[in-house]
């Protein structure tokens, strides 16, 4: 840790330790609640800010934790009134553990059902989390035997802890939560979370299971929130429908949005400040406070998307960084760089037989048979709509329902009958998209770091500072003009530089097969020439290079073999010269119907 961070942390610790002696029990209780809300805000920031899963019903997990403790420690009458409180240690512990387990299990189910790779927009998860929170309140109110119905449960607070005790307990819990959160978001796994949030498909085709990352973070967030809810219930001795409610869930969203998404510290401060202000205002103007919350939510979302507190934190960080430059990430060539491809050139690595794919009655691929060979630069050409991009999609993601066979002969990797995109990528099939696809909030070095791990789970605490990549990647970085830009954000790169970065990322994953969908689009003649050299180099070290391309001159110059697709079929397959002279190809390109 750098010196200013140590100083700031120590100052905060002193303030937190001394503060309760300057105020009365009332404020100690308020602050203890605020600290628990801050834990919730940090967990929601993880889920929403870093993993990009908007959980509009985050209060559900809090309520489950609280209700579980309440239910475990009370005895209810038939109509749901609290008759007795059994406050043994075992019951509190059981209630807490059960709450966390139930919330975790339910969150895992919800996430599994809502976060599939086929659904890319937020609508689905938003509606389902919203609906679940609403349904939870209804079920709660109409099932008095469970949690006392509309009256809720009360009077089961832990007896032998003073408000000052709770103050320090919650402060310690918050400190641990924030410390762990900061370590994780700064770690290599933190990079993966942001990568998945920014661009899930790109992460998937680098070998990462983006869906599982989201499910994992969502579930962990629910578990932490349920724990906070359980502690809240032990402290206040209250469990009711309000803890599940939409109102509380909205407050949580407001804390994170006002604090600033993806800053950890911002949402923490937001939750403490707003819940204190809310508690004070709520005493006098309950309805007005909700209006203020609504207005704040709108104002922040529409006018200050970065939030109010997070940017201040970042600004402070930047000012400090000027005095104490942080250790950046450097990109270096790996010392012992093994050849990435197969040594035995000329061996087929992907064998495609009679591949058929269509939407409804439209057949995009109509029986494609093709071998991709190691150490060969294969160009796939064809007019628009010939099925080139579809062919790429179908062989890099076998979950797409295509008929026919695709066999992957990649040494050391066994793939199932219908491997998913990330499994194929992990086995060594790299893919470069047609439109440059990068991770907006990652720097060049960070993107290459993730790519280089090729789907291996990154450490949730270690923060790599140097990125070792194959020499070929360093060449690409230089040729693409990315030299000296290791710490530049991908979103700040020009179109051409993004193309270069994406090619570099794809190669950094040490693929055996690399499929590039028009990597030269939007590049100058000079840059094309350089890209051509890179591709030839990749072929020479034994990688099977598949290039989807429009520019026939470029194709003839670089390729070893050319396949012409037309109407979803292979109409030519041979050396570039033959294909160039072919009558069939000429008529296909000029638009005359073939056959």
């Amino acid at each position, binding site marked *: 840790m750098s010196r200013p961070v140590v100083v700031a942390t120590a100052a905060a610790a002193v303030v937190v330790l001394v503060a309760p002696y300057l105020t009365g029990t009332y404020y100690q209780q308020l602050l203890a609640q605020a600290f628990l809300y801050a834990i919730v805000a940090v967990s929601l920031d993880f889920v929403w800010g870093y993993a990009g899963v908007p959980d509009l019903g985050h209060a559900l997990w809090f309520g489950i934790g609280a209700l579980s403790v309440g239910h475990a420690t009370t005895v209810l009458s038939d109509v749901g009134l609290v008759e007795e409180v059994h406050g043994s240690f075992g019951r509190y512990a059981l209630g807490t553990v059960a709450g966390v387990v139930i919330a975790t299990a339910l969150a895992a189910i919800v996430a599994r*059902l809502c976060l599939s790779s086929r659904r890319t927009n937020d609508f689905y998860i938003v509606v389902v989390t919203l609906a679940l929170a609403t349904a939870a309140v*209804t*079920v709660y109110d109409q099932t008095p035997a469970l949690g006392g119905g509309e009256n809720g449960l009360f009077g089961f607070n832990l007896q032998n802890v003073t408000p000052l005790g709770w103050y320090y307990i919650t402060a310690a819990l918050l400190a641990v939560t924030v410390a762990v959160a900061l370590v994780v978001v700064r770690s290599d796994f933190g990079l993966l979370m942001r990568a998945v949030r920014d661009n899930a498909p790109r992460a998937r085709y680098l070998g990462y299971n983006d869906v599982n990352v989201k499910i994992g973070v969502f579930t962990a967030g629910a578990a932490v929130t349920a724990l906070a809810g359980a502690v809240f219930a032990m402290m206040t001795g209250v469990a009711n429908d309000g803890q599940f409610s939409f109102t509380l869930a909205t407050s949580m969203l407001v804390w994170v949005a006002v604090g600033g998404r993806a800053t950890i510290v911002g949402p923490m401060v937001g939750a403490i400040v707003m819940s204190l202000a809310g508690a004070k205002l709520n005493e006098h103007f309950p309805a007005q406070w909700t209006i203020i919350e*609504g207005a704040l939510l709108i104002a922040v979302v529409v*006018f200050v998307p970065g939030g109010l507190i997070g940017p201040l934190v970042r600004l402070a960080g930047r000012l400090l960084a000027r005095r104490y430059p942080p250790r950046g990430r450097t990109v270096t060539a790996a010392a012992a760089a093994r050849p990435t491809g197969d040594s035995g050139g000329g061996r087929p690595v992907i064998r495609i037989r009679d591949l058929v794919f269509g939407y*409804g*009655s439209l057949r995009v691929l109509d029986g494609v048979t093709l071998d991709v060979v190691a150490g060969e630069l294969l160009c796939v050409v064809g007019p628009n709509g010939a099925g080139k991009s579809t062919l790429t999609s179908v062989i890099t993601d076998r979950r797409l329902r295509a008929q026919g066979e695709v066999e992957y002969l990649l040494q050391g990797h066994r793939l199932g009958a219908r491997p998913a995109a990330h499994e194929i990528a992990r086995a060594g099939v790299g893919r470069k998209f047609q439109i440059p696809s990068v991770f907006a909030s990652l720097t060049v070095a960070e993107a290459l770091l993730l790519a280089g791990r090729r789907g291996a789970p990154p450490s949730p605490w270690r923060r790599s500072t140097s990125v070792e990549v194959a020499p070929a990647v360093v060449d690409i970085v230089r040729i693409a003009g990315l030299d000296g830009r290791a710490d530049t954000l991908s979103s700040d790169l020009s179109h051409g530089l993004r193309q270069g970065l994406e090619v570099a990322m794809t190669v950094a994953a040490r693929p055996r097969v690399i499929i590039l969908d028009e990597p030269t689009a939007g590049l100058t003649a000079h840059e094309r020439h350089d890209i051509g050299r890179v591709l030839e180099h990749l072929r020479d070290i034994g990688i099977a290079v598949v290039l989807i391309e429009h520019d026939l001159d470029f194709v003839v110059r670089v390729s070893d073999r050319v396949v012409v697709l037309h109407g979803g079929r292979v109409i030519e397959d041979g050396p570039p010269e033959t294909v160039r002279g072919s009558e069939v190809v000429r008529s296909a390109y000029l638009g005359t119907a073939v056959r």
Partner: protein
Amino acid sequence: MTVLISMVNASATTLLVVMGLAIVLGLMHIVNLAQTGFMAVGVYTGLEIGPRLGFWTGALAAAVLAGLIGAAAETLLLRRVRERMLETMLATWGLSLILTQLITLRYGPDSRVMATPLHGSFHLFGTTWQKYRVLLVVAAILLVVAMWALTRFTRVGLRVRMCMADPDLAEDSGINTLLVRQATFVLGCALAGFVGVLLGPISGIDPNFAGNLLIPAFLAVMMSGRTLHGLVISGIALAVVQVGFAYWSKPAYATVAVIAVAVVVLGVLPDGIDLRRFRRAHV
């Protein structure tokens, strides 16, 4: 038989609520979480004006007021977060909180009732039908047919469909997409206000009276796969599930069942209910 009637009535209610949501979502990609807020604005306008100037005047006034608020919200807020679905959802949710709370401040949280404009009932098929509820069913059918005819046969509908299919191309073809979008949002909000009044006489009215209708409505939109027939099918299906569960099991489980049905349907049909897909697949 009573269950069946309840199912028909609930279907009508869901469809009335869903239609405003669907046109806004379909055209603007805005999930209007303020729909319930606008319905509440509508129903309280109806309560104020109805007794003095008549129910239908109240309903019209509600539509106008909700439309005006919608126009302001679109101009001042939503235009700035265009095409960013999550931001629009949060902004409309904030708007909904504000509208609901303002109403609570003015009228209090207590439940109220609204007089029905159409009294009485009649007998048919051996059971009793309340005239007003039948009117609602007719209104729902009319709304669906009108929506279909509007998009299918009129120039306005053509323009709207162009904007839905490709906003940039529509803009380049000389269509003022900004105006079309604003008009759509205003129409959606006005419809919400109007429907709020329509549902007034059959509901206990409080500032959050439409809150329970919102979830089935959103789930229906989600299941619909962006087609009108999908919307009708899913709206009716969810209403039937809800009423059925409430009747044969506990009402509390009905809300959970509705969510489960929607999630399962979307698990099987990720693109939602779209009959055209089936037809094409069989060719």
